[in-house]
Structure formats: structure tokens, C-alpha cells
């Protein structure tokens, strides 16, 4: 009857060396995917009808100087692979090229506009996390009518695109009631927060529905497990059991939706910023797409994909810490 303990079954977060190896592998995978994604983003302009130079200048007077500038930046006479490598190298040095519409460095444009977008996404993320977890929690725990209300509410949230939410919220709270501004960003940080409130709600609504559904389903699954009954049989209060065992165990599943949530938030800034005239990179993506300002489109696409993949990596690395039963390196789908 020795107290000998079996070795880690299938690997756990315990072995720090194993974790480092896992992190290194995920980092390498992410880099590979990022290279692939940048290849797609760069190569897209070769899909355009006509010559790349003509496409890059489409809709504008193709003056010899302009053509020369484009050629100088993209080195369009070089072989494709070399062009790509040069482009990628410039981006690694923070040079995203020049905006054709704004006649300025894309990196300048981004630096001006990224903060508003990041703040908007952060506000929406706070809303999604708070409301999504709360609704999922009370739906799973209360059951009955409360649960039905949560289900109906999330069903409609999941059917409401962010631009629909944006227009409806604008009509009701900005125009009819006049509680919030109809758009813009205002002066100063307080005003910025004030102006971004409705956009953040519009951005969050759909994802609140999504997160509430996921949380509810995950908690219901744990609630049906026997260790919950055991915890109650040992005198823990129902509230404590739900917090320490049910919610805690559901958190791993909830975390895996993090990548999807952030990527949806980022992409939908295009719609919401356009609807509320917020001068962020979402609105810039819309403007540069309509004006065929391709360097800017490339830069924003790359930034969105990069941010999304970073979040996915963080989620992957956090998951074994939240749920020690997860086998390191097991593949998951991001959806």
C-alpha cells in the first residue's frame, strides 16, 4: 500500500519543459500560417484583371511619375517571389508602403486610427465577456422561464448583424432619445468613450448571444456531472459549488471561443465604424476598398489577421492552465 503516484497521464500543465516545447511549436505554427496569410494578401493583387501596376493605380491618372512610384515600391519588374520577400521585409521594418488615396505613409494612417479601433474593440470585449458570461450563467443555473428568456434573447442576438444593430441603436438612442451622439469620436478621452458607447454595444450584441449560448451549454454539461452532486453532498452551498466547480470547469470550453470572438469583433469594426463614422481602421478599410487603395487594404488585412492569430495563440497557451486535463498539442478547431 505505497503512496506511489502514477506519472502524468497523457501530459498535463505540470511539466514546464513540456509546456515550453508546446508553446514553441504553437509559435512556429502561427508564424507559418502568418506567412501563408501574408502570401495570400500580397498575391491577391495578381488576381486583378489587367496589370498589377494598372490595378494599383486604377481610377487615377496613370502619370509616368505615379507609375514609377508604384514600380519603385512594389518592384513589379522583379520575379514574384522576390517582390513578395521584399514587401514582407519592408513590413517587418514597419513600412507598409504609401497610401495611394491619402498620399502618405500607410503606417502613419494606421498609427492615427488604430487607437480608436482598439479602444472600441476593448469596450465591446468587456461588454461581451460580462454580459455573455452572466446571461449564460443565469440561463444554466436558474432554468425554467429565465432560461427560456435567455434562449429567445440569444437567438435574436445571433440573428442580428452588427450593422443592423448599429442602425437600430443609432435611430433609437441617438436620434429619438438623444442620449448618445450619432457618430464621430469627439475631443478628449471622456468624449471618445461617450462616442464609442453605442458602437461598442452594436459590435457586442451578436457575440453576447454567442458567448451566452456557449457558456450556458458548457455549464449545463458540467451541472449534469456527478462531482457536482458530490460537492453538494459535502455541505458546500449551491452558490459555491456553481462558482468553484460548475463555472470553473466550463471556463475551458468558454475560452476556446476567444479567438472567434476577437476576430469577429475586429472584422465587424468595418461595419460599425462606417455606420457611426468612427475614424478607426475599420472605416479606413471600407474607404480604401471603395477607393481601391490597395496598400492600405493589404496593411489592414494583415494587421487584423495578425491580431486574430495572436489571440488564438494566447488562448491555446492559456487553455492547459485553465483546464489541466487538456492534452498539450491536441488540435482544436477555432470555431
Amino acid at each position, binding site marked *: 500500500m505505497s503512496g506511489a503516484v502514477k506519472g502524468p497521464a497523457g501530459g498535463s500543465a505540470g511539466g514546464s519543459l513540456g509546456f515550453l516545447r508546446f508553446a514553441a511549436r504553437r509559435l512556429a*505554427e502561427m508564424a507559418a*500560417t*502568418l506567412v*501563408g*496569410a501574408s502570401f*495570400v*494578401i500580397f498575391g*491577391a*493583387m495578381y*488576381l*486583378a*484583371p489587367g496589370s498589377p501596376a494598372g*490595378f494599383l493605380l486604377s481610377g487615377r491618372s496613370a502619370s509616368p511619375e505615379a507609375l514609377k512610384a508604384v514600380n519603385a515600391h512594389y518592384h513589379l519588374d522583379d520575379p514574384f517571389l522576390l517582390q513578395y520577400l521584399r514587401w514582407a521585409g519592408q513590413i517587418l521594418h514597419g513600412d507598409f508602403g504609401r497610401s495611394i488615396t491619402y498620399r502618405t505613409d500607410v503606417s502613419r494612417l494606421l498609427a492615427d486610427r488604430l487607437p480608436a479601433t482598439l479602444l472600441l474593440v476593448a469596450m465591446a470585449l468587456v461588454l461581451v465577456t460580462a454580459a455573455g458570461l452572466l446571461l449564460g450563467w443565469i440561463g444554466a443555473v436558474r432554468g425554467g422561464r429565465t432560461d427560456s428568456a435567455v434562449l429567445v434573447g440569444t*437567438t*435574436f442576438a*445571433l*440573428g*442580428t*448583424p*452588427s*450593422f*443592423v444593430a448599429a*442602425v*437600430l441603436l*443609432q*435611430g433609437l438612442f*441617438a*436620434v*429619438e432619445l438623444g442620449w448618445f451622439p*450619432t457618430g464621430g469620436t469627439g475631443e478628449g478621452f471622456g468624449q471618445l468613450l461617450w462616442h464609442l458607447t453605442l458602437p461598442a454595444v452594436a459590435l457586442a450584441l451578436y457575440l453576447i448571444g454567442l458567448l451566452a449560448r456557449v457558456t450556458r451549454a458548457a455549464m449545463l454539461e458540467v451541472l*449534469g456531472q456527478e462531482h*457536482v*452532486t458530490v460537492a*453538494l453532498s459535502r455541505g458546500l452551498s*449551491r452558490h459555491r459549488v456553481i462558482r468553484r466547480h460548475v463555472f470553473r470547469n466550463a471556463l475551458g470550453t468558454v475560452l476556446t471561443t476567444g479567438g472567434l470572438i476577437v*476576430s*469577429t469583433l*475586429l*472584422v*465587424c469594426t*468595418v*461595419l460599425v465604424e*462606417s*455606420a457611426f463614422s468612427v475614424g478607426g481602421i475599420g472605416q479606413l*478599410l*471600407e474607404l*480604401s*476598398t*471603395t477607393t*481601391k487603395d*490597395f496598400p492600405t*487594404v493589404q496593411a489592414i*488585412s494583415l494587421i*487584423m*489577421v495578425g491580431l*486574430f*492569430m495572436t489571440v488564438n495563440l494566447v488562448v491555446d497557451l492559456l487553455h492547459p492552465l485553465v483546464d489541466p486535463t487538456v492534452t498539450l498539442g491536441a488540435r482544436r*478547431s*477555432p*470555431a
Partner: protein
Amino acid sequence: MSTTVLRRPGLARIRTTRAPLQHLCLGFVALVVLAAVLAPWIAPYDPNRIELGNALAGPSADHLLGVDASGRDTLARLLTGARTSLLGPLGVVAFSTLAGVAVGVTAAWRGGWLDSVLSRSTELVFAFPGMLLAILIVSVYGEGLLAPVIALAIAYLPYVSRLTRSLVLAERGRPYVEAYQVQGHSGLQICLRHVIPAVTPVVLAQSTVNFGYALIDLAGLSFLGLGVPALTPDWGRMVFDGQSAVQHGYPLSAVLPCAAVVLTVVAFNVVGERWADQVARRDR
């Protein structure tokens, strides 16, 4: 403090209470499809007919759902708009389902390097949210319905192929497949006649849900002015056209297409999810 849940077969109540909602949603889907098909005959006006003097008029006997800022009849545009708004998602779902099943079945059945190449490219597509891929392609090709439909179909393909792959892998492990193989049936025969029919209901249920998502994405592109051409009636475009009217206190011409989008997506989601539930229950 009543806490434990007894799971005894004799106590399981058969749940039939949710059926009416599903029927309601199915009915709504049928109604929207019917409106789209019959739009040219039932629309009260040409959707692009302009009565400038009547702009932003409310509902009346002549214009049941009012008139938009350009003086066009909202009902006529809603009905005609149903066509583009449904046709786009239909294209996305049809293409992504067919190609996704083909890719998924091949990956699962052949395995090996093909499977790993396909799952690598799946990973790459997953890195691009559907909307972003669509915007990238629209920025290259210019506006129009075809480019975003193809872009979204590619973005949705991995979801279908991944699902198909796991379903086929499970199906492949069943004894009957081996029995057929022993009898000398070719892999292709077994796939076409047994495996694909077996996984179809689950895949189609997922595609029904995807239809709603594709509708959301395409309507969003139209709202940005990147989808359908400006004059084509489309729900997303109608929301865009109506937004400035909203800001001037005339919400009706934007609220109605909003409602059309939300109700249609909800209906497709509910039908798809319930269908998936039923298939899962039958399989158990």
C-alpha cells in the same frame, strides 16, 4: 436543496413542446422564399420607380410600407430585395457544401499526406474571417455579387469539410464498411452509396445554419456598398440607403429591411439547429 437529477429511462419525458416554434420558423422561411420567387408579379411597383415628391412618406393605401428617401416603394424593394438577399447565400452554401463534402470525404478516406495538406490549408483559411476575405477580393475585383459569394464560399468551406471529415471518419469505423470492403466493393462505391448518404443530414443541417451566417455577411458587404451594385434592391443596401433617413428621424425605410434580415436569419438558424438536434437524437 433538491439537486441530483435521476436519469432513468422510465422517467424520461418525451419532449414535444418546442415543435411549434420550429414550424413557425419553417413557415417563415417558406414565406420569404415564396416572396423572392414571386416578387416580379406581386411587387406593387417597379422597385426602382422614383416618386421624388413622395420621398420618406409613411405607410398609406398607395404605399403599404411607405417610401424611402429616393421616393421608391419600400414594399416593392423588400420583395424584390429578397431575391438578391437569398440568392447570394444560396450560392455560398451550395458551393461550400459541395466542395466541402468533396474535400472532407477525400481527406478522411485517403488520409496520409493529402489529409495533412488539406488540414494545413484549412488552418490558413481559418485565419481569414469570411468578411475580411470577401473585402480583400472585392478590393481587387470591384463590387458585384459574384466575387464576395466566391470569397465567402471559400471561407465557409473549411467548416463544412472539417465536419464532414470527422463524420466520415466515424462512419468509416463502423463494421458495415469493412463488410462491404471484404465483399470487394470499391472505396468510391462505398463512399457514394453508403457513407455520403449517411453523413448528409448532419452536413445539410449545418449548411442551413451557414445560410443565415452567409446572409449576414453578404448583407454587411451590401451595407458597405461593396456587394450588389447600387441600384439593385437588396436588404443590406436598403439599410445603407435608409441610414441617413434614420439620422433625420425617418427610421421606417431602414427598420423594415433590418427586420427582414433579423427574422430570416433567426428562422434559418432555428430550423437548422433543430434539424441538427433531431439528426443527433436519431443517431444516438
